[in-house]
């Protein structure tokens, strides 16, 4: 895995290289070079199997993180290429020409995060929800609990307990609450 990362870093600028396991490494590449790097890995390094594409919403940094996870069937190891894109104006180069399964992932991400992949087929079609006119539902700023309470007639009398507090009351009713526990509860 080390050799591959050295080879890659001689071509592209890599950031945040993390060796998670012996056979799994994550590396971040800039938005411009990402698809080129993925194509290189597929065609020359034998990473022919696209395991998955995913997206993480880092709302604090104002960024979306895309992930292309590739698997090498010969060496039996994986590399995850991470790409950070702007959250305000999310747009990414489409990779649907590389694998036949990519457009499905892109269609899902368009619906659940609102990321635009120009040129990707059937991008505007519904994937899992019908008639959705709120914020894309996987964004961190969409509150699913609030939406459900507003829309779906919650049945009253639903009791919810904070697990930590409830367990302490049940198990140790006579013990005073320490400052650390109070801090942990928050």
């Amino acid at each position, binding site marked *: 895995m080390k050799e591959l990362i050295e080879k890659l870093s001689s071509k592209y600028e890599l950031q945040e290289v*993390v060796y*998670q*396991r012996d*056979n*799994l490494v*994550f590396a971040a590449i800039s938005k411009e070079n990402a698809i080129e790097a993925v194509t290189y890995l597929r065609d020359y390094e034998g990473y*022919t*199997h*696209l*395991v*998955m594409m*995913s997206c*993480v*919403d880092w709302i604090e940094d104002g960024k979306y993180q895309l*992930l292309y*996870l590739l698997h090498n*069937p010969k060496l*039996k190891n*994986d590399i*995850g290429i991470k790409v950070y894109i702007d959250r305000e104006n999310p747009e990414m180069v489409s990779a649907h020409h590389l*694998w*036949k*399964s990519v*457009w*499905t992932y892109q269609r899902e991400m368009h619906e659940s995060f609102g990321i635009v992949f120009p040129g990707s087929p059937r991008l505007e079609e*519904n*994937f*899992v*929800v*019908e008639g959705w006119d709120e914020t894309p*539902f*996987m964004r*961190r700023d*969409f509150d*699913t*609990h609030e939406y459900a309470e507003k829309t779906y007639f919650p049945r009253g009398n639903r009791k919810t307990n904070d*697990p*930590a507090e409830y*367990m302490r009351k049940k198990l140790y009713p006579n013990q005073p609450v320490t400052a650390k526990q109070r801090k*942990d509860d928050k």
Partner: protein
Amino acid sequence: MINKFLGFKPDEKLLPSQTVTEDTEIDLSSHKYQKIWLGPNHPGVTGNMAIELTVQGTTVMRAKTHVGYLHRGFEKLIERRLFVQGFPTSIRMCVAEPDTNEYFIARSTEELSGYADAVPEYANWLRMLSLEMARLAGLLRGVPGQGGTFALGIGVQWGVYLRDLILDRFEELSGARVYHMYIIPGGVRGALPDGFKERMEDNLRDIDDFIIRIKKLMFHNSVFKQRAKGLAVITPEMVDKYGIVGTNARCCGVKRDVRKDNPYLYYDKLDFDPPTATDGDVYSRTWIRWQELIQTVDLIRQIMAKMPKKGDIRCKMPNVLNWKIPKGETYVRLESGRGEMGMYYVTDGSDKPRRINLRGPSYNHAISVLEHMLIGQDVADVHAIMVSLQTCPPEIER
């Protein structure tokens, strides 16, 4: 022959051209085509999904998969639950083999919090036993289910009964029939009950008997052979292009099995060889699954023989209510009955997961592969192709 005798002459213009491909042009206003919907109720044993078929006569010209009927938004829900609360939620992502999901989430949290090597040996063997039992339960529905799509209903009756016996063993082990919640972070929830091995052996003997009977019923049946042979062929070139995994990849000679490629738990200590075939059609896919049935029974016997008699079932873990996992990300995979399944797990140092994303084999099988393979097939074979790809919609939409 009969047409000639009756003097019936079909209108050649209305018949589909001999070779229908993805590029064949379709003019919907020409009154030659019809759109029919297959689903969203259960077509066979595959779950709720719909296929929008454009047909000419009985030939499928276009197919579009519609999913989302089982969408519950797990990935969003888990983001607002503690690690331990997210656990019972996440296993409901796949109802056929829920143990696979238990393993992902347990393994990813252990790996990210640094407890990966702390899990006791006995617990790992029990995990393997539970995973293989889940695979067996899935196959007992899947193999006869393939016959069911060709109207061989009796196999399904036998299979469901035997699956119920395995569910009884699960009930003994974990207390639940369908959603077991057995594999938890740090180990498993209970040790093997007394006399479990004997009762399991009893059931396995019944299943051995069933395996021989189902062979006679399905693979010696001329109708099944005629309809399944040469139907919906997967070629080795398609495997990487479409991301085909598991038995669907092995049916055309591409040997992909996570248990062999990236051994997890103690699969490297077991003696097995994943079956492969070369034809790539529905028949060989069913044949492989039938062989896998034999293999799984054998694996359960091996596991029960090789596992230690006693041991710890759990390692010491931090208080789950205040459990914070440092920032990190990982991908854990395993071989389910349908193929490679995995989970991308991101934490950000708080007490809740940042993001989880399930990679189910059906994500590719049921959408891009199915839409490609249905073109040019007969409407009557659509069920069979769906079941032979082992599509499971809950893992597409989560």
